[in-house]
C-alpha cells in the first residue's frame, strides 16, 4: 500500500466531462485527484492503493459501479474505503445496494460543482 501525505480522491466514471467538474470542485482543496474511465482501467491502481475518498459511477461500460464496489469490498484494503456513488441513475434499488455495500453518500447527476466540494470537505476535510 502506498501512503500519500496529500489526501487522494479517485473518480471512476466513463463520462469525459466529469473530469472538468471534479477539477473545478476540488480547486483550492489540498487533494490529489485521479480519474479513471472504467472499473477495468482503475483496477491496477486500486488493487494496491487506498484513496481517501473514492467516487464511483454506477452505469458504465463494462463492469457497473455497484458490482465493482462489491468486488472492491472483498479486498481487505477496501473493506472500509470511503465511497460515494455518483450516478445518473436515481433509483431506490441502487441506493439500497450502495448502502448495503457501505457507500457513504449518493450524488445524482447533474449535481452542482459545490456538491462535489462539500462531499470532499465532509469526508477528507479542507
Amino acid at each position, binding site marked *: 500500500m502506498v501512503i500519500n501525505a496529500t489526501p487522494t480522491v479517485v473518480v471512476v466514471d466513463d*463520462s*469525459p*466531462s*466529469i473530469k*472538468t*467538474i471534479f477539477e*473545478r470542485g476540488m480547486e483550492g482543496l489540498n487533494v490529489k485527484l485521479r480519474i479513471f474511465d472504467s472499473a477495468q482501467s482503475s483496477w491496477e491502481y486500486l488493487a494496491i492503493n487506498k484513496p481517501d475518498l473514492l467516487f464511483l459511477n454506477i*452505469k*458504465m*461500460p*463494462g463492469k*457497473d459501479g*455497484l*458490482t465493482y464496489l*462489491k*468486488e472492491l469490498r472483498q479486498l481487505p484494503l477496501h473493506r472500509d474505503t470511503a465511497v460515494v456513488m455518483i450516478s*445518473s*441513475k*436515481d*433509483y*431506490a*434499488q*441502487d441506493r439500497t*445496494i450502495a448502502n448495503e455495500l457501505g457507500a457513504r453518500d449518493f450524488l*445524482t*447527476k*447533474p449535481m*452542482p*460543482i459545490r456538491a462535489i466540494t462539500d462531499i470532499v470537505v465532509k469526508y477528507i476535510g479542507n
Partner: protein
Amino acid sequence: MSKAYLRFWGVRGSYTAPFASHLGVGGNTSCVEIRVDDHVLLCDAGTGIINFGNHMLRQKDIRDLLIILTHYHWDHICGLPFFVPAFVPDWNISIFGPGQKAADIEEYVSAQMKAPFFPVGTETWLAKVRYITPPPDHRFAHGPIQIAYDNVHHPGSTYGYRIRANGKNILYVSDNECLYLDKSIKLKYGELSAEEQSLYDRMQREEYEAEIKLLQGADIVIHDAQYTPEDYLKKRGWGHSCFIDTVNTAIEAGVKELYLYHHDPNYDDQEMEKIQRRALEVIRERKSDLVCHLAKEGMIIEL
C-alpha cells in the same frame, strides 16, 4: 439453408396481463426465443417461458438451451419455477445474467424458489443446469449465436444484449429508461450556474451519443417502450422508457426494424393500437424509414 427465427413468447413488463381485453398483444411477461438450426437462445424467463417449455417438450430433437437474463426482477425470472424442461433429466440448460461470478447468478435465480415463496427449490431440477461464469470481455457464444452485453439504465445491474444470429444483429434491451440524464439535466438546468450549464451540456451530448451507440448497427431492436408520454410524466424514474423516446432514439441510431416491447400491463389492445399509431406518426413526421412494430405474443420473425 438454416432454420433461423425469433419468436416472442412474452411481451409484457412488470406483471402478467391475462385479461381478455389484452390478449391480442399478449399477457405473458418477457421471453423471446432466438433459434438458429438446433441452437436455442432464450432472452429472459418471464411467464412466456412456461409455454415455450411446454412447446419444447412436444419435440424430441433439442435438449440444450441457453437462457440469458437481463436482470432478476420478477417479470424476467418468474417463469422458471414452472419451466418443465428444468425438471426433466435429459435436458441441458445454461443460464447467464448479471453477477460477479456464476455462483451469484445461481443465488439470484434460486432465491425465488426458496421457502416460503415456493414449495420446491432448484435442487429439485433434474436437468443439468449450468450457470455461466461472466466472461471478462462481456462476450460469449452459444453455437453459431454470438452474444455481447453491457449495462443499461434500469435499477440495479441490468444488461442489454447484442446478439448476432444467422447474419443479423439483434439488440435485446427489455428494460432501459432512455434519455434519463438528458431529462434530469433539463429539469435542473435553471438551478445550475452558467459554467455548470455548459459542462452539463457537454455531458448531455456524451450521454446521448452513448444511447445512440447502444442501438447503432442493429438490424432488429427489441426495446423497452413501456409508457405513453402521459404516464411517463408520473412514472419517470421507474426504469422504463416512454415509447416516443424509444422511437426517436431508434431513428437517430439508424435502426432498421424496431419492436416496441415490455408493454405496460395496464394497456389493453385498444391502447396498444393507439401507441402503435402514434409511433408511426412520429416516424412519418420525421420522414424516417424505420419499420416499427408492436411486439406481440406468438409473433415470429424470420432471420
